[in-house]
């Protein structure tokens, strides 16, 4: 746990404090994002924590211990540190770079070698290939991965990361962010993550602290910042599309309607059609008895058909996993002009349905009540 208590930093000769009485608590195992426009003091605030910059007044405690009472060198060795420029030592191999802190801590050679390989595997780089490379033989993305691995080398409970994915292209950044979140899921480090990118903040942060001119303007869950911005500054900083950004935070699972209306493949076509007409449904999902998605039927195909609904079912190729975020799901719906998306789990079982009604309710504005050209989809379960 990191506790900041009225932390203030005034650089010698400066009239304005760089950090002005910031109080904040970062609970164990959480990523707390410091964000704000450039010059807002977010990097300074981060560097005050491992005492790279001496504090002017206030106090910072890490795991209940005031950092001023600790040896700064010891303190830094137990706090992971990753920066935007990566700062890999060009004269050292990847192995030696990662081994920096373990060496400072006096680990044995065997322990270091094992740890290096473990970390390389963790950041998705083949140890055999990369261990003996020099930083100049790495791509930007690989270097950033090594930078993160180096920060985690001695398994510090706390990590400070200053725009660790800032220097790479957007596509690789997304990949690295996802990988890092996957790693964090397992390791549960307490992380201070500095960025100026609101989208990154929303994606990475369990908690976001928005700073302006050294002062903490609003701190809270990402959803709070988007949904209840404290003032105009926060509102403009998170952007006019803050409503859409909330979609990033929500999973399909949170928004889908479970147990959607459907029929079984061995239901009689005539009866299914009858129910569809009665309920004003243009299309209907078809599953087998094990809830596995088989496809969909429409009224036109069923009309005059004698047999089972499964015989005339059409394939439904566009489905979505419950773990995807709503932004991706919405993008899929818009680009394929779908009124609804069927949510299918990894086992092929149908888990629910996502429709524009639920989405628009979630993002806060009302929309067409009917699920597009699919007709009304309700949580009615099997139609017959």
């Amino acid at each position, binding site marked *: 746990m990191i506790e900041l208590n009225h932390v203030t930093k005034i650089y010698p000769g400066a009239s304005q404090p760089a950090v002005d009485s910031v109080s904040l608590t970062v609970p164990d195992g959480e990523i707390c994002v410091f964000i704000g426009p450039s010059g807002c003091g977010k990097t300074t605030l981060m560097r005050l924590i491992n005492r790279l910059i001496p504090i002017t007044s206030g106090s910072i405690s890490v795991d209940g211990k005031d950092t001023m009472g600790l040896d700064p*060198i010891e*303190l*830094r060795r137990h706090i992971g540190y990753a*920066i935007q420029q990566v*700062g*890999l*030592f060009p004269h050292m191999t990847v192995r030696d770079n990662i081994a920096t802190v373990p060496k400072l801590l006096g680990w044995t050679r065997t322990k270091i070698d094992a740890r290096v390989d473990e970390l390389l595997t963790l950041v998705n780089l083949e140890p055999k290939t990369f261990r003996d490379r*020099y930083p100049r033989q790495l791509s930007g993305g690989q270097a950033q991965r090594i930078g993160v691995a180096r920060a985690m080398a001695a398994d510090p409970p706390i990590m400070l990361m200053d725009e660790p994915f800032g220097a790479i292209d957007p596509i690789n950044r997304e990949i690295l962010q996802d990988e890092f979140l996957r790693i964090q899921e397992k390791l549960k480090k307490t992380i201070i993550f500095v960025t100026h990118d609101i989208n990154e903040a929303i994606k990475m942060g369990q908690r976001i602290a928005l700073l302006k001119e050294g002062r903490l303007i609003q701190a809270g869950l990402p959803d709070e910042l988007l949904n209840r911005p404290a003032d105009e500054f926060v509102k403009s900083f998170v952007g006019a599309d803050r409503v859409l950004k909330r979609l990033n935070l929500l999973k399909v699972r949170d928004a889908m309607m479970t147990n959607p209306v459907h029929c079984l493949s061995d239901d009689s076509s005539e009866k299914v059609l009858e129910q569809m007409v009665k309920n004003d449904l243009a299309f209907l999902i078809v599953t087998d008895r094990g809830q596995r998605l088989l496809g969909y039927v429409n009224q036109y195909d069923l009309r005059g058909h004698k047999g089972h609904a499964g015989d005339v079912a059409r394939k439904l190729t566009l489905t979505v996993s419950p773990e995807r975020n709503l932004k991706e799901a919405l993008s899929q719906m818009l680009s394929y002009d779908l009124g609804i998306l069927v949510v299918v789990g990894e086992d092929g079982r149908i888990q629910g349905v996502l429709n524009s009604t639920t989405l628009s309710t979630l993002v806060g504005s009302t929309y067409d009540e009917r699920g597009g050209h699919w007709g009304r989809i309700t949580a009615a379960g099997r139609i017959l």
Partner: protein
Amino acid sequence: MKRERPRGNYLTLMAVILAFILGVEAQRRGYLNFARENPGDIYRLLVQHLQLVFYSASIAIAVGLTIGTVLTRSFMRRYRETVLNLLGICQTVPSLAVIAIAMSYLGIGRRTAIFALVVYSLLPIIRSTVAGIFQVDPALVDAGHGMGMTPRQVLFKVEIPNAMYIILTGIRTAVVINVGTAAMSFLVGGGGLGDLIFSGLAMVDAGLMLAGAVPTACLAIILNWSFERLEKLIISPGIPRGE
């Protein structure tokens, strides 16, 4: 890279042919007689010359690296420019004048010669040390501090290894110039191959002069080449070179 090898070989071949022609011409004019008759003298003076270079270079490297490194520390920020400018002015004093000034205070002898040589090679070494350490990416230094290196560890494990390419270039320049300047130590009784060169000049004896000049030139070329080799050994393969 691949294109440079054949060109290098070509140049070497040209140099060998040129040296051979010059040698034949020197032989025809009888310039080589002195060298043939007094190999012992040349050898003795060559060793003296080497000693002068070795002692002065060792001291200059030790002192220069220390001063250069100290100048890059933050507490020296206020004095850095002044010190470098002063050293720059000193460097404009001709080497002969440095030797003369040194002699007026220290008298004649090898010590005076070595002292003057040290003073004269100091600046390139200090300059390259300062320049080398300053061109190290600040992010590396920040990363070092942030990971809990002590200031000394940052200096020796991060800054100096990354400045090595530029520092070694400065040392190489200093040493090679030193070989030439060391010839002048004869003037203050320091010995060395300058003995033959200056005697030859005074007596208008080309044979005597060449017996001193040719080994001096060869020494400079060989030392330069050795340092290039040394750089390849010392500098980490991870550091890009030749910028």
